[in-house]
């Protein structure tokens, strides 16, 4: 029974992973009990912070690798990043949700549910990242879907339910296909690795992937690409993404874009590594490049017709996921490095943008872009931060995204100019759309603001600004200077990705 989930429980308490996985799990249960949403919000922040703190321990001491869980160069920084974004988002939601409940959009029982689900979501994310067993990986991604579905439908509005329904149906099917792919991978591994957990432990498989039945894993990869690709939001599988982002509470939009998409892509990349290790299997590159380009294109043109600020940035997420997929599809040290960097930067900046968007919506009382005007005049600090964030996501220096796009495009162009052209076109189009919208929202004569709720909301606003600024600051630093350890990890992973 070494393969069963039950084996998760007897993790040694000394194991750093205990904190990382245990805290959110416990938090989920605990928060379900807390009646008062204010306490819940605070507790939420505390638990998330503790999770982040314990995740930092991983940097110093990596746990021993089991057949279920492991930490390697790839997931270590993603774990830390996830814990960090989870923490900051918790802080933001503490500032945000209060306002929502005041405006009677949320009943307190919903909030209770919300906080519990938030921790559950974090747990599934972290489990997915640390999972060594591809089955566990699948389970946690599925669980993540379920939790987010519930949170997306939090406002019981018709739109919210419709979005959640769309999200649920599409992602469940996607997940189903991913499971089929997982089974196929097992079937490919089983003759080589023998029965049992060994044939599902990624770290063991990747060493002997060369001997796997190539056609079988090729087939598996197709299912996994479509399956996990749906969660990544690759066009034409992206349909759920904009609505889910737009109709859910803003903190959820932030974690969806900042974390969930990353995790899905992470899963996909794990399997790409398997294939890359097998010489005779089909080349995943072209498929990923194709999906990436189509995502970039669909997103870039969609942006020109969006009237809803959250959908606007949801589509921009699709575009960036496309860029990453493209980069990993290109492969090679430069492109892979760029892709990994882009993952990090995007999750930081995009969640920051959603923070800003949330505050903006609360300030202006609308999410229709044409009604949002002159933010830099009406709410200067927020407005300018928003401007900086959008410029960062649009790929302007000195933010980190510029570096990754620089590496992707230049290296791609040097290798195959024709492949780079669609990406450049797409990015340029996106840029145009974003700047066009940004100018309309940030400049010009300011539009009306909703009546401000006095000092409490002022402070709430200020607290909400903290994570926003923190993310941007990190992105800025990363754009100028990357710590050597991170670089080494990226390069090591880049090698595995082939």
């Amino acid at each position, binding site marked *: 029974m070494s393969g069963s989930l039950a084996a998760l429980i007897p993790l040694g308490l000394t194991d750093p992973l205990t904190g990382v996985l245990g805290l959110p799990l416990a938090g989920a249960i605990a928060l379900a009990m807390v009646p008062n949403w204010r306490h819940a919000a605070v507790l939420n922040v505390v638990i998330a912070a503790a999770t982040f703190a314990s995740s930092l321990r991983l940097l110093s001491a990596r746990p021993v690798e089991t057949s279920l869980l492991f930490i390697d160069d790839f997931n270590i920084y993603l774990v830390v990043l996830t814990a960090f974004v989870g923490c900051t988002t918790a802080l933001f939601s503490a500032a945000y949700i209060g306002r929502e409940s005041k405006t009677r959009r949320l009943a307190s029982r919903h909030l209770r549910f919300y906080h519990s689900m938030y921790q559950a979501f974090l747990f599934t994310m972290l489990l997915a990242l640390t999972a060594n067993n591809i089955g566990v990986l699948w389970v946690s991604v599925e669980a993540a879907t379920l939790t987010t579905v519930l949170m997306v439908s939090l406002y019981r509005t018709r739109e919210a339910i419709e979005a959640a329904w769309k999200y649920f149906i599409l992602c469940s099917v996607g997940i189903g296909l991913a499971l089929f792919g997982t089974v196929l991978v097992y079937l490919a591994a089983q003759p080589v690795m023998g029965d049992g957990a060994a044939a599902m432990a990624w770290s063991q498989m990747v060493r002997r992937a060369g001997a796997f039945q190539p056609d079988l894993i*090729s087939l598996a990869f197709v299912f996994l690409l479509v399956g996990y690709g*749906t969660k990544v939001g690759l066009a034409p599988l992206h349909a759920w993404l904009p609505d889910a982002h737009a109709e859910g509470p803003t903190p959820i939009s932030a974690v969806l874009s900042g974390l969930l998409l990353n995790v899905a892509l992470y899963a996909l990349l794990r399997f790409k590594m398997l294939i890359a290790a097998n010489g005779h299997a089909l080349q995943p590159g072209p498929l990923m490049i194709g999906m990436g380009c189509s995502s970039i294109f669909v997103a870039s043109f969609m942006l020109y017709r969006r009237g809803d600020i959250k959908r606007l940035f949801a589509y921009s997420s699709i575009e960036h996921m496309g860029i990453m997929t493209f980069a990993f599809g290109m492969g090679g040290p430069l492109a892979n490095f760029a892709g990994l960097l882009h993952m990090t930067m995007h999750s930081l900046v995009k969640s920051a943008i959603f923070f800003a968007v949330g505050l903006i919506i609360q300030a202006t009382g609308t999410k229709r872009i044409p009604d949002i005007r002159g933010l830099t005049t009406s709410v200067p600090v927020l407005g300018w931060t928003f401007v900086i964030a959008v410029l960062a996501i649009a790929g302007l220096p000195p933010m980190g995204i510029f570096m990754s796009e620089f590496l992707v*495009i*230049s290296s791609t*162009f040097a290798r195959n*100019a024709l492949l780079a052209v669609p990406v450049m076109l797409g990015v340029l189009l996106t840029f*145009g759309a974003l700047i066009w919208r940004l*100018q309309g929202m940030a400049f010009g004569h300011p539009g009306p603001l909703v009546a401000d709720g006095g000092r409490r909301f002022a402070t709430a606003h200020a607290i909400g600004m903290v994570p926003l600024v923190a993310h941007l600051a990190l992105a800025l630093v990363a754009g100028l200077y990357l710590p050597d350890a991170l670089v080494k990890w990226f390069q090591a992973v880049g090698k595995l990705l082939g």
Partner: protein
Amino acid sequence: MIIGTVLAGLLCLALVALIFQRRAMGAVYAGCLLGASVLLGDGIYHLVMAGHEEIPAVVLPFGVPWLKAHFRVDALSSFFLVAINLPAALASLFAIGYGGHVPQPQRVTPLFPLFLFAMNGVLVADDAFVFLVSWEFMSLASWLLVLSDHTSADARRAGLVYLVMAMFGTFCLLPAFGLLAGPSGAYGFAAMRAAHLSPLAGALVVALAIVGTGSKAGLVPLHAWLPLAHPAAPSHVSALMSGVMTKVAIYGLIRILYDLRGDVGWEWGFVMMVLGAVSAALGVLYALMQRDLKTLLAYSTVENVGIIFIALGLALAFRDHGEVALSALSLVAALYHVVNHALFKSMLFLGAGAVMQATGVRDLDRMGGLLNRMPVTGVTFLVGACAISALPPLNGFVSEWLVFQSLFKAPTVAHWAMRFGVPVVGVAMALAAAFAATCFVRAFGIAFLGRPRSEAARAAQEVPFPMRAAMAIPAVLCLCLGVIPVTVTTGIANVVEPLVHVVLSPAVLGWPWLSPVSLTAGSYSATMVLLSGAGLMITTLLVVHRFGTRAIRRAPVWDCGHAEDIVNAQYSADSFAQPLRRVFGSVVFAAREEVEMPPPGDTAPARFRLTMTDPIWTYLYGGIVKVVDAIADRVNPLQFQTVRRYLLMMFLTLVLLLLVVAVRQQ
């Protein structure tokens, strides 16, 4: 390293401006003035010491991790340090007096130092990443400066077009560097120099470099953003954007084509030459039709960039045909014009700013008679107008003379394309020169001469001292650069030496005689012209005052007897341009004039309506917008499908991929 400290200082200034808002404005601009002056001095020092001391490359631990950030100052970049920081210093000086009068000072002051920072960053960059970061940062800062008057819809439109075009330019340079760096990503300039490219890749690099830098420099047809963005910014910023930022683009082009790429085919020289010719002719023709003083100046920038491109193209063609001496000549001509244009264009923009501060108008037809009211501004603007119209003995003429000299030698490149292309280019450039004169007679004459055309103009006052100084200094410099061409040329010859590996001897005939090509090819000596001119002037004065009366009577204007006092009876900007508009405008801009005559007996005034459209806007950019719109409309329905349809899409994707696998297995 001095430059580093100055750049850091500029960043701090931006912070100071951000924190203290308006209170620190004077201090900030003073700081910019100081910084720019130091950089200027440093550049001059390096130029003087060129060859005697090797400046070490500096590596800082940021940027692309395994690459780090490389900085280096060589002769070329130090030349541009001079060409860029001189106007920058003047603009800062101007801003000390002017900064408070712009629409939203708190949106300008913090960005001004950042803008300077970015432009100098481009010059000292020694690897592609730093170069592009600074390049983009430059666009970013100037974009926000353009948007500083963000409540005006025009400014916002200008900003949008500008930033998108800037990004387009970057997306041309980026792959160009990518090709130079190769798949392994050797982004250092040193490595790029050593790189060997396939012919195709080489050609691609050149093409991309031309388009990328051309879009920044305002080369037709990539100029569309320029006349929108430059005027939209506050005048001291416009001066920088027009006079300086375009030069940074030129620097980038020279860096790539002459330094990083060793061998570039003459065909590209030809292409650049033709593009330049088109820009020169069209740009000034546009300028000629404008009523807005700053737009006019912006368009004239297009013209001058065109002239520089002609010279650069010639240099390429010569170099490819082994005519190194001529190549050096054209390159010197180009750089000479770079520094000249940087000077007088920023001076003219500052003048425009002074006029706007004094009158509050930008429309030529609401100015007039300012020469009497704003003597210093008037004189400096006049000098600038003469210089940019290439009138001897000012500096503008010297560089154009050099360009013409090298152009007239171009047929030595024995290829039919050059031989038949060069005369046409010559015509275009000659037309450009003539139009420029007309354009600036119009600009100066309508704005500063005649009777005031509006109350604002009548009430104009001369601007305060710092602004006057900022305009007077370049005026003097224009004269200096004009009358000692040999000295200047010698200096520039040292700059281009590393690029063409030959030192141009600018004066075969000896000091005052600028005779770069050969003993007999032709010579020009501004010094002698000026001296003899002075001599003749003195003679004339003596004669006239000796033999004639000195009596003068002031009287109302005669005007063939029927003088009326209507100021609008004066020639207006539009009416001045009318003949040329009739001849060229109808063809190039589809200009249409409609006159509504009231029926006899009706006392209503006759109405004159003028409509002009820019074909490049209508067809090229309008076309692109149409296409994007159309596709967006086609794609948009994807948002509004039923879940079933989405499932279907998913299903089809899956089946398609499965089929791919199936086919592959067979």
